[in-house]
């Protein structure tokens, strides 16, 4: 029993060391960088410049533009994925022969790297040899259509995620509730609005939060498909910061922008945490 006291600390030490060394310390270092003039070539000699980086980012028209696009993208994809996922969950919530097999294929898109999906859509949407361009008779990557296109691609990859959560949620509703409602003479719509929806409401919130946050961080697929273009039409905040750091080589400014992103995130973050604390107690 004497060993117990010290053991309980050293068993958890390795994971804490990794978190501290590769996540928390770098974030603190990032704060330091954000108050300095640092370029990729001069990273050895940072020069203190106060809140200059923050001012530059906040007055940068590109930053504002990328924020607006990211909000737009997040809103559209999250809502659509929620609705489609719910529809799929209801569709699959019945006796179907070979259901497990179908579900595996439904979940496949979200298990494939978004980067690879992005590459494939470059072929599918290719102006000259892409099948979609051929059947529609136009390229979908021109400025007129590019935003709906990336939104739809994201929806096609991540609706299965909403399905996965909501399908699991539907399984938690006891069948007796529906039977009782049937006896009382409730129709299909009434059952949906008064039984299904209230019961799965916490899961719906979960989908909105997780998909909303992940969607806001979008980078892989869009960067490969459009590299944020044409112009800067599909530049998400992540792509903006990435380009700032590794194309403009302005590390200090990029660090400042990434910390502003963290600030934006702190609102949904606290919402989630409060929700979970409530659920835990």
């Amino acid at each position, binding site marked *: 029993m004497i060993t117990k006291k010290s053991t309980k600390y050293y068993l958890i030490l390795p*994971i804490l060391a990794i978190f501290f060394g590769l996540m928390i310390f770098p*974030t603190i270092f990032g704060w330091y960088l954000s108050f300095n003039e640092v370029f990729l070539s001069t990273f050895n000699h940072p020069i203190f410049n106060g809140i200059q980086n923050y001012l530059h980012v906040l007055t940068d028209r590109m930053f504002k533009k990328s924020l607006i696009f990211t909000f737009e993208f997040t809103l559209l994809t999250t809502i659509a994925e929620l609705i489609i996922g719910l529809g799929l969950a209801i569709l699959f919530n019945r006796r179907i022969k070979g259901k497990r097999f179908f579900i595996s294929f439904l979940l496949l898109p979200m*298990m494939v790297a978004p980067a690879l999906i992005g590459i494939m859509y470059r*072929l*599918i949407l290719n102006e000259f040899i892409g099948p979609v361009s*051929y059947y529609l008779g136009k390229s979908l990557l021109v400025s007129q259509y590019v935003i709906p296109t990336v939104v739809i691609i994201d929806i*096609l990859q991540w609706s299965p995620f909403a399905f996965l959560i909501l399908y699991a949620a539907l399984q938690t509703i006891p069948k007796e509730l529906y039977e009782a409602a049937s006896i009382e003479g409730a129709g299909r719509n009434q059952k949906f609005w008064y039984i299904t929806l209230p019961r799965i409401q916490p899961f719906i919130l979960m989908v909105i939060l997780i998909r909303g946050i992940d969607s806001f961080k979008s980078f892989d697929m869009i960067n490969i498909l459009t590299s944020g273009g044409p112009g800067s039409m599909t530049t998400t905040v992540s792509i903006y910061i*990435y380009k700032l750091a590794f194309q403009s080589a302005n590390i200090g400014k990029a660090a400042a922008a990434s910390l502003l992103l*963290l600030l934006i995130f702190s609102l949904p973050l606290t919402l989630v945490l409060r929700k979970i604390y409530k659920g835990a107690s």
Partner: protein
Amino acid sequence: MIHNSFKKTLSSLFIYVIILIILFVFNFPIISAVLTSLKTNADISSSPPKWMFKPILTHYQNVLYAYGYNFKQFFINSIIISLFTSLLVIIIALPAAYSIVRFNPLGGNPLVMVLSLRLVPILVFVIPIFILFKYLSLLDTKTGLILMNTVINAPLSLLLLVGFVQDIPESIEEAAMIDNANTLAILWYIILPLVLPGIAAAACLVFIFTWNEYFMSLILSFQNAIPVTVGSSLFITAWEVKWGEIAAAITLSIIPVLFFVFFLQKYLVRAFTGGAIKE
């Protein structure tokens, strides 16, 4: 009666048709990767698109054996990085999970800590990491990518394993404690065999997530440590776009994932929600 059962068959047939259409649309990029990888260059660029054609394996041969393609290197890098990340994550997360379940040394709800880590954008710490790795000569090394993938995936595995350890009755360990076994021995001889399914699930998920990782690899690798996700995209920026080879590379990169999806279905909800929802 007959009329009724006919109606039933018809409506269930209708559902199958709908499901097949949905699966086709959602999986279209994967289907077209497989098809394109088997077409000749002439068939790939034919207009209208060809759906029936004589399949060839030339692109696979090129990708794997022809001179000038580094795909094999990317593939091997991905395997090494994903395997060692899975291993390292389990090595640090299993003792931590056991410690949290039995002693909770940090207090509070570990779930909250873990979820909040998941929500922090990688960008926030990956830019400083780039500078730090430059100092430490870890840029463009597999070690560097293994370390970073470990940080990203550790919270999730920790949560999964906490769930599994919680299901083990404490009485099993108490018997061992009477025999004066130390904690590490208990962990190795009693806990480890009992949570093996959990370890397998966590390791497979970490493998897939690491295999699919693109953003950090794009920043932290540029020659020696490039994984398949970044490597496949490099085929495009060359002056000649070889769609057949790209499609073959993508098909090969999807195979490990396909292999795991069927096995992992049970754990996917927990994995993607950071354990916040238990099935």
